[in-house]
């Protein structure tokens, strides 16, 4: 299969037959990269059991071809059969670039594939570009706890692999009508007996609103003072039809659970409206919310770093400003943030 095509691959992550949206975010990024590479083609890799239908979704998001391994041993994610199957397909079709979502599944998987095919892998990238001169992937990622951004290059080994966290990249608009594409079926080449691990049970976490894909996030930090302070935020979030988030200090203090943590150490978010109340804004937090359309920050310290990225900053007491926001929004007839 050694043609000259610059194949840009995206891992189409799915669980229980439902694709993870990060797959579409990556297809969007792959299409951008394809503009800067000669003779490039954007392609997906899909594994699972009875998941052929997801390939059609991938075509609508810009993949021209999907490599499919459909096997009972892939009914749920396990590192060994997934990494084994994909590595064989990588060796056969020799992609130039391979993008994987930095979910817990994707991070587990990508490092095993990179090891099997002996190539470089850059984790948790926040920016992808093609180096104009060298025509190779320039993958930028935070390091040292988010204090430093490093651009990583993979000079000769192929594919150039990276993982990208959900919501770091925008979601592209899919085609409204079905798009034709090519499905290449490949065998897994591993039996259940060779896998080594078996899922005995799954305990779903308590129903919690996902902050990752919410349009409006109202987050609180140490300045909210107590779990009680978060009650005020909940009222504001309800008035806006949004969800409650928190900074790391508030989570560490035990005021709210980790599932609500916003920032690089928690969830990266890009809502239409982000309200940061009593959050000073450590670099990890600012990087994790910088993709928001509009940031409204409230803090009594005029020098709080959060103001450096706020579209609108209010220097003031959160216990006065937040209830006033709730009041005015509840009274207003114009919807906020839902307009596009």
């Amino acid at each position, binding site marked *: 299969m050694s043609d000259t095509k610059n194949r840009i691959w995206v891992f189409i992550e799915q669980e229980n037959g439902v694709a993870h949206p990060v797959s579409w975010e990556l297809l969007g990024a792959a299409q951008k990269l394809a503009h800067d590479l000669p003779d490039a083609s954007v392609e997906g890799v899909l594994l699972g059991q009875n998941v052929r239908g997801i390939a059609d979704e991938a075509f609508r998001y810009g993949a021209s071809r999907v490599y499919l391994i459909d096997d009972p041993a892939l009914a749920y994610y396990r590192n060994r059969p997934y990494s084994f199957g994909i590595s064989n397909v990588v060796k056969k079709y020799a992609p130039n670039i391979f993008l994987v979502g930095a979910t817990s599944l994707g991070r587990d998987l990508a490092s*095993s594939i990179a090891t099997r095919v002996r190539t470089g892998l850059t984790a948790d990238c926040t920016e992808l570009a093609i180096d104009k001169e060298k025509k190779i992937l320039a993958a930028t990622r935070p390091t040292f706890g988010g204090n430093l951004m490093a651009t*990583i*290059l993979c000079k000769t080994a192929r594919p150039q692999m990276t993982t990208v966290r959900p919501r770091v990249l925008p979601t592209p608009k899919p085609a409204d009508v079905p798009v034709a594409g090519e499905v290449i079926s490949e065998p897994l080449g591993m039996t259940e007996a060779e896998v080594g691990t078996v899922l005995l049970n799954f305990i779903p976490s308590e129903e919690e609103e996902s902050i990752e894909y919410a349009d409006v996030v109202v987050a609180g930090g140490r300045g909210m003072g107590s779990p009680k302070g978060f009650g005020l935020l909940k009222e504001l979030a309800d008035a806006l039809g949004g969800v409650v988030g928190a900074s790391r200090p508030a989570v560490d203090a035990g005021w709210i659970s980790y599932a609500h943590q916003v920032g690089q150490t928690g969830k990266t978010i890009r809502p239409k409206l982000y309200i940061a109340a009593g959050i000073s804004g450590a670099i990890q937090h600012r990087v994790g919310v910088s993709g928001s359309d509009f940031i409204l920050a409230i803090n009594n310290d005029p020098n709080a770093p959060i103001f450096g990225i706020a579209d609108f900053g209010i220097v003031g007491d959160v216990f006065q400003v937040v209830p006033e926001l709730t009041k005015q929004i509840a009274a207003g007839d114009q919807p906020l943030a839902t307009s596009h």
Partner: protein
Amino acid sequence: MADRPIHIVVAIKQVPDTSNVRINPQTGTLIREGVPAILNPYEVHALELAVRLKEQHGGKVTVITMGPPAAVEALRECVEQGADRGILVSDRKFAAADTLATSYVVATAIEAIHKEDPVDLLLFGKQAIDGDTAQVGPGVATRLNVPLITYAVKVEKFDPENRTAIIHRKVERGVEILQTTLPALLTVEKEIAEVQRAPLPNIIRAAQYQPEMWTASAPVAFDVAQIGIKGSPTIVGSAGTPPLKKAGAKVTASEKGVAETVKMALAEVRRVKGEG
């Protein structure tokens, strides 16, 4: 019937305490001076799990690290916490290794340990707090061809006699309960074991403990093509501070009044959203 003695290998890393890291704003590089080196926090918990399992089943805990000579301090800390044997794999030839080269060295060293003293369980932290890549553990499991369980939060059952274990693994949507064959490799979250204070005899032993020093050539001859810069496909092209969104207006509530300030803020949200 008494269990046969078990052997657990814990792979650790000495890291700069990233909560104390500062950046030179002119050069965009890290200021390393004065930043304390610590044992990667996740590995403190990995080691604690190993020590607990050793207490229950009898046996031995070996700790291995690749790093500069100063990493002996991290190994002494591990002995203090209950490790029996510490190995520092250190050589200038290993310098500038990326995760692929690192996983080669660690996997090859563990293979050598396993040959003389078979290993039942391999433990890694879920990631190191300096690079945050979470790649070396999965890389080593792949190279050694053992089952990998990342983000482990609990060992429900550990049965070395029948070479099987039941492990809880945290994922986004909940907790997976997995049965695995042994030996297996786990990368662990902090919940895996609560750290207890080290007993006095351990502290005394650790103070005098001299870890074994392995180089690139002895007792294991590493393949020079797979170590250091040569064995690392990735390079750092450039580094800098993160680019962020630009700031807009800032209004002081006590000057304008709370109600008026909030009104201005909401008008601004509507204006910007209207444009979009």
